[in-house]
C-alpha cells in the first residue's frame, strides 16, 4: 500500500495548522494488528454495527439465498430434495435450452428475442418521448398552466400495473354476443386503422398488436413522469444563454440546437446508458398480466417463460437456467453501461 503524507495530516481551518487525521490513524492501527483491532473497533461502535444487522439479514436471506438457490440450474431438479442434496447435472439444462431440438429450445430463443425486442422498441419509441415532452413543458411560460399539464401527465404513473393493464384490456376487449368491443378498438376501427374483424376478435388476442400495445401503454404510463428529470435539466439553463443566442440572431430551432440540446445532453446520455444497461430487464409483471397463450409468439419473455415452466409448471431447473443466462447477460450490460457512464462523464450510476 502506498502511503501518502496527506492521508495523515489534514489541514484544520480553525487553527490554521496541520493536524493528525484521526480516521487514517484508526485505519493504520487496524492495519497493524488486524483482526484484534477490527474486533475492538466493532465493539467500541457496536451500536452502529447493530443498526446494519437487519438490513444485511434481509438482503442475505431474501436476495442472496435465492442466488444460492439458482445453483439448481446445474443440478437435477427434485421437488423433495433441497439444492444442496440434488446431484449435479452439469450444463445439461443449458444445452437443452440453447442447442436442443425440442419445442423448449424454440420457445426459449423466442422468449429471449422478445425480451430484447420489447426493450429495444422501448428504447426507440419510449425513450425520446419524455425528452420531447420536457421541451414542450419548457415552452409554457405560465406556471399554473404548466402545473396543470404536469399533474395530468404524471397521473397514469400512479396506477398499479394491475389497474393499468386491466384498463387497457377493457378498452381493447373483444366483442361478444352480449357486448360490443372495447371503446378504444371502436375508435381505431372508426379511424380505419384496423379492420372490424380484428377488433372484434380482441386486440389482446392478436400477437400482431402486443408489442404496440405494450409500448403505447408504457408511454402513456410513464412519459409524463419520466420527463421530470429532463425538465429539471432544461430549467437549469441560464436565461442569459438564450439571450446571447438571440442577439446572435438564433431562431427557435437554432436555440434548440445550440443551447438546449447541448445543455441537457449529459442527462440524456446518462439516462440512455441506464436504459441500455437494463435492456434485458423487462417488467415481467406487465407482460404476465397482458399476455395470454394466443400472444406467446410476440409476448413471451424470459421471465414469463421461467414463470410458466418453473412456478406454474415443475421444470425448475430449466426455468432457472433460462433466467440465469438472461440475468448474467443483463448484469454484464449494467456493469458495461456503468463503466461507460463513468468514463464519459465522471458520474457513475451506483
Amino acid at each position: 500500500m502506498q502511503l501518502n503524507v496527506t492521508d495523515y495530516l489534514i489541514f484544520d481551518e480553525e487553527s490554521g495548522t496541520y493536524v493528525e487525521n484521526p480516521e487514517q490513524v484508526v485505519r493504520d492501527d487496524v492495519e497493524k494488528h488486524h483482526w484484534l483491532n477490527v474486533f475492538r473497533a466493532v465493539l467500541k461502535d457496536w451500536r452502529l454495527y447493530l443498526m446494519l444487522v437487519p438490513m444485511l439479514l434481509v438482503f442475505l436471506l431474501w436476495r442472496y439465498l435465492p442466488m444460492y438457490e439458482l445453483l439448481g440450474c446445474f443440478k437435477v431438479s427434485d421437488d423433495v430434495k433441497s439444492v444442496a442434496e440434488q446431484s449435479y447435472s452439469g450444463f445439461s439444462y443449458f444445452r437443452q435450452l440453447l442447442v436442443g431440438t425440442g419445442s423448449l429450445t424454440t420457445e426459449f430463443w423466442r422468449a429471449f428475442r422478445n425480451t430484447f425486442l420489447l426493450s429495444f422498441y422501448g428504447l426507440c419509441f419510449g425513450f425520446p418521448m419524455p425528452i420531447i415532452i420536457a421541451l414542450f413543458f419548457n415552452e409554457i411560460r405560465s406556471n399554473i398552466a404548466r402545473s396543470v399539464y404536469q399533474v395530468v401527465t404524471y397521473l397514469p404513473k400512479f396506477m398499479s400495473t394491475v389497474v393499468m393493464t386491466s384498463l387497457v384490456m377493457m378498452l381493447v376487449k373483444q366483442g361478444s354476443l352480449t357486448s360490443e368491443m372495447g371503446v378504444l378498438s371502436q375508435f381505431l376501427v372508426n379511424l380505419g386503422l384496423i379492420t372490424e374483424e380484428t377488433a372484434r376478435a380482441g386486440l389482446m388476442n392478436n400477437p400482431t398488436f402486443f408489442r404496440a400495445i405494450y409500448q403505447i401503454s408504457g408511454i402513456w404510463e410513464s412519459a409524463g413522469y419520466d420527463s421530470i428529470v429532463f425538465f429539471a435539466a432544461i430549467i437549469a439553463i441560464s436565461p442569459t444563454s438564450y439571450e446571447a443566442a438571440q442577439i446572435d440572431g438564433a431562431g427557435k430551432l437554432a436555440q434548440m440546437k445550440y443551447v438546449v440540446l447541448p445543455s441537457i445532453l449529459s442527462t440524456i446520455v446518462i439516462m440512455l446508458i441506464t436504459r441500455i444497461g437494463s435492456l434485458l430487464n423487462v417488467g415481467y409483471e406487465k407482460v404476465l398480466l397482458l399476455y395470454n397463450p394466443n400472444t406467446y409468439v410476440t409476448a413471451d419473455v424470459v421471465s414469463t417463460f421461467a414463470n410458466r415452466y418453473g412456478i406454474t409448471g415443475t421444470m425448475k431447473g430449466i426455468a432457472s437456467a433460462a433466467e440465469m443466462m438472461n440475468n448474467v447477460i443483463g448484469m454484464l450490460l449494467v456493469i458495461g453501461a456503468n463503466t461507460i457512464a463513468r468514463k464519459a462523464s465522471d458520474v457513475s450510476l451506483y
Partner: protein
Amino acid sequence: MKRRLEISELIFKIISYTLLTVFALCCLYPFIYTISAAISGKHAVEYNELVLLPKDIQFDAFSRMFNNNMFWNAYTNTLFLTFYGTLWSLGVSIFGAYALSKKRLMFRKGFNFFLVFTMWFSAGLVPQYLNYLDTKRVFNSFGIMDDKWLVVIAMGMAAMNIILLRNSFEGVPSEIEEAAIVDGATEMQVLWRVYIPMSKSIIATVALFFGISRWNGYFWARQMISNSNEHPLQVFIRLRLEEYTDPEAMAGWNEAFASDSVIYALIVCSIVPILIIYPFIQKYFAKGVNVGGVKE
C-alpha cells in the same frame, strides 16, 4: 423592452401547446371514461354508447362491490400491507443507510458492494419463489401462519432507496453531529434528533416509493398468500377481471347493469385513495426522480 415574438418561436409554441394538450387529454380520458362506465346503464356500457359523460346513471355496480365482504377484506389487507410494509422497509433502510453513511464504518466498501450487487444481478423468479416457499415454511414453524407477515418482512426491500437515504445522510454536516455528541447524545439520539429531521424530505420520498410499491404489489402477493381472505386489493382486482371477462362465466349475467361496470367500479375504488393524496405527495415524487437519477 418587450421582445417581438418571432415566427419560428410562435410556431413552436403552438405545436407545443397542441401536442401537450393532446397528450394530457390522452392521459385523462381513460380515467373519466372509467368513472363514467362504472356508473352508466347496462345498454350504454355494453354497446359503447357513452363517449365521455355517463348515461342512464346507476350506482348498482358500486353497491355490489361495497356489499361484498371480500372487497373490504382486500382493502383492509392492502392497508395492512402498505402500512406495516412501509414501516418495516423504511425502518430497516434508515438504520442501514445511517450506518453506511459513516466514514468510520469498517468494511464500508464491502457493505456497499453487498447492497449494490443486488441491483446488478438478481436470482430471478424461480429461485426467489423457492426461497419464499422455504421462508414460508420457516415462518409457519415459528407459528406465524398469516402469510401477510411473510409479504411484509421478506419482500419489498430496495437497494436503490437505501442508497438514496445514505447519500442524503452523507450530506449532513458533521459539525452538527459532533456538537450533539459533545452534548452527550448517543448514536440513537444522533440519528433520531439530527439526521432524520435534517433529511425529512428525502425520507418522505423514500417512504412514498416504498408505500406505492407496497400498495401496488401484485405478483408475489398472489403467489405467496394462499388464503383468499388475505389477498390484497390488486390480487382481488385481477381475479375479478379474470372472472368477469370470461364470456362463458358471464353468459348467465342478468343484472340490471353491465358486468364491465363492476370492473370499472373496482378500478375507481383502487385509484381514488391515490388521487386524494396525490396533490400532497406529488412534489416528493418529483424530488425522488431528481435525486435518484444521477449520483457521484
